[in-house]
């Protein structure tokens, strides 16, 4: 009896978790002009609307561009940070790690207000650079954490063995350290990409008329028109997120 109840509860919980995601996809294939569930007739009408509208496409491309750039930046900075943290003493490391993970625990709206003020004084509101820097900050903790795990698992004697065999510091990094932490770097990169791609709060504050990410565009659309084209944009985001997390899984699986 308990077994049946447990299963029912688990099913209910799973349904609650995936419900919004499952609800969005059918809406994207609706014929109607309003977001109504379930759609009475099916069509690809709103997909054509999406891809015919330059503002939607530009938002998608902006999102991809910002995500790719902040992914690169946060991977470079986060990997260096993770390697540097490992070289610190235990107390300094705990302190510095806390600092690096700060953006993860700080309320996003607080970060947004602060960043908005900063970006204004540097003239970065409404620029790609401003968004990239903000998202890099938000993604950095994920890279530091992911790479940190790889770095901690790396046997320090491997580097000793390599230098004992005659390898200089550069060669040791290239041939020993980098291959060992690569899965962590890739995993961190995927997290960074996804973090930036679906981020909306900072983007709303820092976006401008010409630089607008997909989530910001969806937000604006929902407030004015509320057509199923929003569901199309959301479905595209879900697909990319699934691909991203699958890649992340693959990257970390290879290390094991």
């Amino acid at each position, binding site marked *: 009896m308990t077994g049946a109840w447990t299963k029912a509860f688990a099913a209910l919980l799973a349904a609650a978790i995936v419900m919004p995601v499952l609800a969005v996809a059918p809406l994207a294939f609706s014929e109607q002009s309003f977001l109504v569930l379930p759609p009475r007739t099916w069509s690809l009408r709103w997909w054509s609307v999406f891809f015919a509208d330059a503002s939607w496409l530009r938002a998608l491309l902006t999102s991809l561009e910002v995500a790719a750039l902040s992914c690169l930046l946060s991977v470079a900075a986060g990997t260096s940070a993770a390697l540097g943290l490992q070289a610190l003493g235990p107390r300094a490391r705990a302190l510095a790690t806390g600092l690096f993970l700060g953006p993860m625990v700080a309320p996003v709206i607080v970060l947004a207000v602060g960043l908005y003020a900063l970006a204004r004084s540097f003239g970065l509101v409404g620029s790609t650079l401003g968004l990239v820097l903000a998202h890099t900050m938000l993604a950095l903790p994920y890279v530091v954490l992911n790479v940190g795990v790889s770095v901690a698992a790396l*046997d320090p*004697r*491997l580097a*000793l*063995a*390599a*230098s*004992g*065999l*005659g*390898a*200089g510091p550069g*060669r040791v990094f290239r*041939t*020993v350290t980098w*291959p*060992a932490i690569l899965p962590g770097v890739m995993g961190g990169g995927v997290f960074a990409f996804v973090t930036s791609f679906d981020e909306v709060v900072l983007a709303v504050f820092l976006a401008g008329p010409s630089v607008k990410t997909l989530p910001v565009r969806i937000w604006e659309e929902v407030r004015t028109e509320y057509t199923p084209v929003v569901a199309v944009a959301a479905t595209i985001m879900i697909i990319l997120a699934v691909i991203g997390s699958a890649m992340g899984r693959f990257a970390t699986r290879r290390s094991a």
Partner: protein
Amino acid sequence: MSAVAFRGVAKRYGASEALLPLDLEIASGEFISLLGPSGSGKSTLLNICAGFIEPTAGSLFVAGRDVTALPARRRNIGMVFQNYALFPHLDVFENVAYGLRVRKIARAELEQRVEDALRTVRLDGFGARSVISLSGGQQQRVALARAMVIEPDILLMDEPLGALDKQLRKEVQIEIRRMHVARPRTTLYVTHDQEEALVMSDRIAVLSGGRLVQLGTARELYSRPVDGFVARFLGESNLIVGRVAQLQDGRATLSVDGFSSPIEGYAAQGLRMAEAACALIRPEHVRLVAGGRQARVVERIFLGEIVALRLVLPSGVELWSRLFSSDAPAGDQIEIGWDRERVSILPETS
């Protein structure tokens, strides 16, 4: 000229002395074991030799050149770690080839040397295998090949068999000995296992508390240890505590409470008249002697061809005796003795 020479090498961490100033010369092709309990300084000494730890005093010479200030990568040293430290993302061939690639050896020669090294450790044909798929013993042999293939001036091994189980440890031990006999390389081998040191070494350096206590062949250390620590560390030993009663011409006698006659034996360095000392009598030298000292058998341990007897003398002193099982007495009251030439009188060690 010695292949490796430590001159007054010492290491201090803050207030604690990891290694007291030490002199050690290793001849070319000689296999020396550093034997001692953990914290004795043996690994520190090895890591100083490798260039992973900087000594606080003294100099290190390898092949006549002062390498004290050189980083590890410029020393031409082959190091074998206890946990193998193989590069997990490289196959067996590339692991062994690593040092040769650093040295920019041409491809044909590189392949030849890697193949030769793998054959030496009996892993020919394993080149394309992933190192993770190998057993512990095989991984350690890859590590050996990787260290030897660069033709190092000295081969350093840090408890290389520590992670293997007992049976495998014996096999690899004999393997290392066989390779050393076939092609002697100057080797410094760290271990806390006396049997390993006895099987493999030309000479053994016993360390304790950061101090080199004794350096000599296995036979010298076993039959003429400088103190009770070395005696206890190598082989089984009976140490009977007493006071020095006579001391001359390299011989000493020790008077022991409750003993009717004193124990006579070879006098080690550092003995002083009337001071505390101990007599070393190896269990295999405690024999049945008609008309000898009275002893009572309180325990018998059958070990196959040998039987170990725990004896109590009337004075309360306990002794172990190892006899051939066929010679073992049936009764519990026996008479024992020993050859005074086999006895050493050693200074007390705290």
